[in-house]
């Protein structure tokens, strides 16, 4: 499908989102949809670095929370509008990605991963001690009157539809471009890629920046969604595990994998939270993750390919 076809689909999806926004249903459904779409963004963003380049980011909470807290800081300072918050949250997280990449990407991949884990802890400590954004006590956001739409639930839902579509489009474009091919080469064998002319360091930094950017974008509207932002739930390990599990379960080599994983796992979790405890929920995600990594490392897409191969 050429880029024009993809754009048509994208616009159609957004249109569908707007239509859904017009239905008179329980606002909780919109919030649930918001969370699932948020995970589409997170999983897709994670996968640009994890699936395409092969570098595992354990610190998703750091980037997500940076997006959220940048929003808070800008709201406090300038009462900035939502689009600005999203852009700045993304930029801040993108810069963080660039920074941590610059520090660690010249070394073995595992050091990058550990550094990202470290990042979460350090950032959380910093935020806890920063009272301007609420610190440990938390920050309360009072939503202003809704512009254009019927309710904040609908607005946030539609906004997340747009963000998810944009993120997936960007990921798909990268995947099919020469950058995507270079990333695949360095994922398969970094030493060989470098010797075949691929500027591995530059591509890795590109991937970490883009990945960080969109993770921050996912986090930027968070204060509007929860209205009470405090560090432990914003830096929840939840985000770290899901960011890994969704692409792994869906399939890491293509943009479709994280989308499938996010929709399946995200919806399952939204349904499950009303029936089982959140901890049991997380445990199940962890077990499913390990099972997939061991038994079906190419995810559901990989399984589908194998089935199709056998039938043919």
């Amino acid at each position: 499908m050429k880029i024009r076809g993809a754009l048509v689909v994208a616009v159609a999806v957004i249109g569908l989102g707007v239509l859904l926004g017009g239905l008179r249903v329980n606002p909780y459904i919109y919030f649930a949809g918001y969370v699932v779409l948020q995970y589409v963004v997170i999983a897709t963003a994670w996968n640009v670095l994890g699936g395409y380049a092969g570098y595992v980011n354990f610190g998703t909470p750091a980037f997500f929370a940076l997006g959220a807290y940048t929003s808070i800081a800008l709201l406090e300072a300038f009462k900035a509008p939502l689009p600005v918050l999203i852009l700045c949250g993304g930029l801040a997280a993108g810069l963080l990605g660039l920074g941590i990449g610059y520090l660690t990407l010249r070394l073995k991949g595992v050091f990058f991963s550990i550094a990202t884990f470290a990042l979460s802890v350090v950032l959380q400590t910093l935020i806890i001690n920063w009272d301007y954004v609420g610190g440990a006590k938390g920050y309360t956001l009072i939503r202003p009157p809704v512009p254009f739409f019927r309710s904040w639930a609908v607005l946030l839902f539609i906004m997340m539809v747009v963000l998810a579509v944009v993120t997936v489009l960007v990921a798909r474009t990268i995947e099919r471009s020469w950058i995507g091919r270079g990333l695949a080469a360095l994922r398969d064998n970094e030493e060989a890629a470098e010797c075949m002319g691929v500027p591995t360091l530059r591509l890795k930094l590109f991937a970490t920046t883009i990945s960080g950017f969109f993770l921050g974008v996912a986090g930027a509207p968070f204060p509007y969604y929860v209205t009470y932002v405090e560090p432990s739930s914003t830096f929840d390990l939840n985000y770290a595990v899901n960011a890994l599990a969704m692409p792994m379960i869906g399939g890491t080599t293509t943009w479709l994998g994280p989308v499938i994983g996010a929709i399946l796992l995200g919806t399952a979790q939204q349904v499950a939270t009303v029936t089982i405890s959140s901890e049991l929920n997380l445990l199940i995600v962890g077990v499913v993750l390990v099972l997939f990594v061991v038994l079906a490392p190419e995810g559901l897409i990989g399984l589908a390919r194998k089935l199709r191969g056998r039938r043919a």
Partner: protein
Amino acid sequence: MTTADALLDIDGVTKRFGGFLALDRVSIQVRPGERLGLIGPNGSGKTTLINCVSGALPTDGGRILFEGRDITQLPAHQRTRLGIVRSFQIPKPFASMTVLENLGIPLEYAAHSRSGDAAVGALDILRMIGLDAKAHLRPAGLTQIEMRKLELARAMAARPKLLISDEAMAGLSSAEVDDILTILFRLNEQGITIIMIEHIMRAVMRFSERIVVLDAGNRIAEGTPAEIVRNPAVEKAYLGE
């Protein structure tokens, strides 16, 4: 040969690993279009030298000049773009891509041709090397010698001026060795300078115009194949006292 004539000028290169001196002020000059053999016992520093030349390892002393230009500080991928291409002793294919796509990477990144004509160029190379039937297979479906050929084909796709073949023939049968040699000869006819690192003496003697011998990080001998065979220092290096 003066430095000005050399395609590749390795000038007093030194490399240490902790306390171990792997290369001790090694100097070698390679003429354009030459077929140079690089031999030496195990651990003599051949692969280390190649890693320094290709940029995989930084040097601890000395310079490396290519076409008169100092490339000592350049990262590996830029050296490849300049035309220094190496193949790996143990093949390192891109496992998730087809054979054709494997060639696409150096074609795109090192030789600077994007999409369109890249596919054609890659097929030509595969045909020349005898892998065109397997163009759409993944490396996992290749035999040992086919993997070695892929490694060479990939190097060729990078449009090298200087090709460094690192033990491309280890473990191959006699017929397979001749197969690879034919390909290398043909590449040299096209004007590509080739440095061959090999343990298979028959291949090195047949292929090289000139041979340099390394032992324990030092260059101990240099000359035509006939001269090297008679050289007592070389015999001592391989067989001991």
